[in-house]
């Protein structure tokens, strides 16, 4: 099933690229992410990281945190890139870059709350994928980080309507997506898709952005979309949601996404979901630390 976007959405979203709020390295970085690892020029990565001083400093701080596992503080950017490896550095760079991507004044959603959810989802996706043989934890991290990017587009190009949707969601304690549909007639999945396509993100990430609320309808990469869908739900159930009480019950083991994932990863059958849930509570603290790092705009 292909989703046809209203031309209006695409047109409006297309204006985002020209706003000064987008860090200059974001689009080159997204291009880099699509390049097969063996073709990536490490010097190019180092140059990219070093381009923006604030982002460079942040990258080093995030890389040095226990969350990304660099034991010794690196003394240079190339040191960071070499010791962490390409995949990790890409994750970190994207994290820092997205954290600086949007202006605070335009938000109808508390940006700290938004990033807590996105980073939380990223980290939980990574942890979840580590339990699945053959899954790519760094890819899952990026998918988690970017899955709700449509909310950013909404903040920027539909700010009045979206502010109303946020208010309705909080008042009625319903999921934001439901409120969007009621108020705006479309959701962050559609605006997210427009922005992801415009920025030429990888196809599997586009699928995640467009279908993390309806895994059954995605066109490819079902497993990755299912991982993000499940981890998104888990985050919202364990204090890494959008900062308000969502009146909802989630039966993950009987969710269609679980069945989809189980077909690809048999080991899911033996997974102790209760324990995974308890372990997630540790992530809440880790995520808070990460968010405060990404949001501190000092040049260190």
């Amino acid at each position: 099933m292909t989703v046809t976007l209203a031309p209006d959405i695409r047109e409006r979203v297309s204006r985002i690229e020209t706003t000064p709020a987008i860090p200059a390295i974001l689009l080159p970085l997204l291009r880099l992410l699509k390049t097969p690892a063996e073709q990536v020029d490490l010097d190019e990565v180092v140059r990219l990281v070093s381009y923006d001083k604030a982002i460079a400093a942040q990258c080093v701080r995030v890389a040095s945190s226990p969350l990304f596992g660099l034991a010794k503080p690196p003394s240079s950017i190339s040191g960071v890139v070499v010791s962490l490896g390409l995949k990790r550095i890409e994750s970190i760079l994207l994290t820092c870059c997205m954290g600086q991507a949007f202006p605070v004044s335009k938000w109808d959603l508390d940006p700290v709350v938004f990033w807590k959810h996105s980073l939380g989802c990223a980290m939980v996706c990574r942890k979840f994928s580590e339990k699945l043989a053959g899954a790519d934890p760094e890819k899952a991290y990026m998918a988690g980080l970017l899955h709700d990017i449509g909310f950013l587009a909404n903040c920027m190009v539909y700010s009045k309507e979206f502010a109303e949707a946020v208010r309705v969601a909080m008042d009625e304690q319903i999921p934001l997506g439901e409120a969007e549909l009621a108020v705006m007639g479309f959701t962050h999945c559609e605006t997210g898709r427009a922005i992801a396509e415009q920025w030429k993100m990888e196809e599997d990430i586009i699928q995640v952005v467009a279908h993390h609320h309806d895994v059954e309808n995605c066109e490819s990469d079902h497993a990755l979309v299912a991982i993000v869908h499940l981890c998104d739900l888990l985050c919202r159930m364990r204090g890494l949601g959008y900062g308000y009480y969502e009146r909802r019950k989630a039966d993950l083991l009987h969710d269609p996404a679980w069945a989809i994932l189980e077909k690809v990863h048999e080991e899911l059958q033996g997974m102790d979901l209760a324990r995974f849930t308890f372990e997630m509570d540790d992530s809440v603290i880790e995520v808070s630390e990460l968010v405060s790092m990404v949001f501190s705009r000092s040049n260190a």
Partner: protein
Amino acid sequence: MTPVTQLPTPPSISSRDPGLIDPAVRQIRDLIYKVSGIYNAEEKLYLLVDGCGKRMKQLGVRTIREYWDHLTAHPSRDGELRLLLNEITIGETCLFRAQSQLDALRKMILKEFIADKSRQAVKKIRVWSAGCSTGEEPYTLAMSLLEESEGLLKGWQFEITATDLNDRSVETAKLGTYGDYALRNTTDYFKRKYFTPAEDGKLQVRPEIKKYITFNRLNLTDDSKMLFMKGMDLICCCNVLIYFDGASKARVINHFYSDLNYGGYFFLGTSESLLGMTDKFHLVHFPGTIAYWKPMLQGGKP
């Protein structure tokens, strides 16, 4: 040339240095989870460290490694594990302990019950606090349900059965008198509405609340008695099953399952799991808590 940005040493990021906790503590955490289903999150590992410390002092054991041997290789290891479980769960009992469960009950679960049972002649919800200790849980449930009596539960009745193995606990529970520590999570609103002042600055639950609760002594492994606990909508059993061995635990869980109505819920402690001992229940998530749900029969209504 590669541009190299020289950077100052990053500041310390986490005050919670994982290096400070002996790896044996996490081993003990995993052992406890495997045996009892209780999980001590990183944030609460200090409680486990304290608990181990108290037991080590009693035993005259000096290192956590040595204590690990006591828990795993010593002839009295099973007993020691129970004593440790006691230490780490003892301070938990208080009124309004599991707010996330009460929220789930009031915001979502009650609505399900009402929808499921709306066509029944008697509009009644039945709750069982299994292992009620000194009464904190059943009184909390009664007050929470009473808060809905003019709203969701208008026209509905409810009754709470509270049982414990220990006679003395049951007697204390009936008195319903609590001090500051047990009331630390109780808001002034609830204190004013549902309590009267008692001696020594304590508060006593008002008599009209008590009439919603029946207190009894009950051994959860007593199969003949367990068979009579039918027709429950909600069972709460917090930090009780952790003391049972695998076979008795499975038996009790089966009883709970058959004692619940279809669509009924089973709550454990907020960091306690059934360890996958049954696939009859659905493990479901509500904000901040997991619950076990007895699914409706295929085809909808029970």
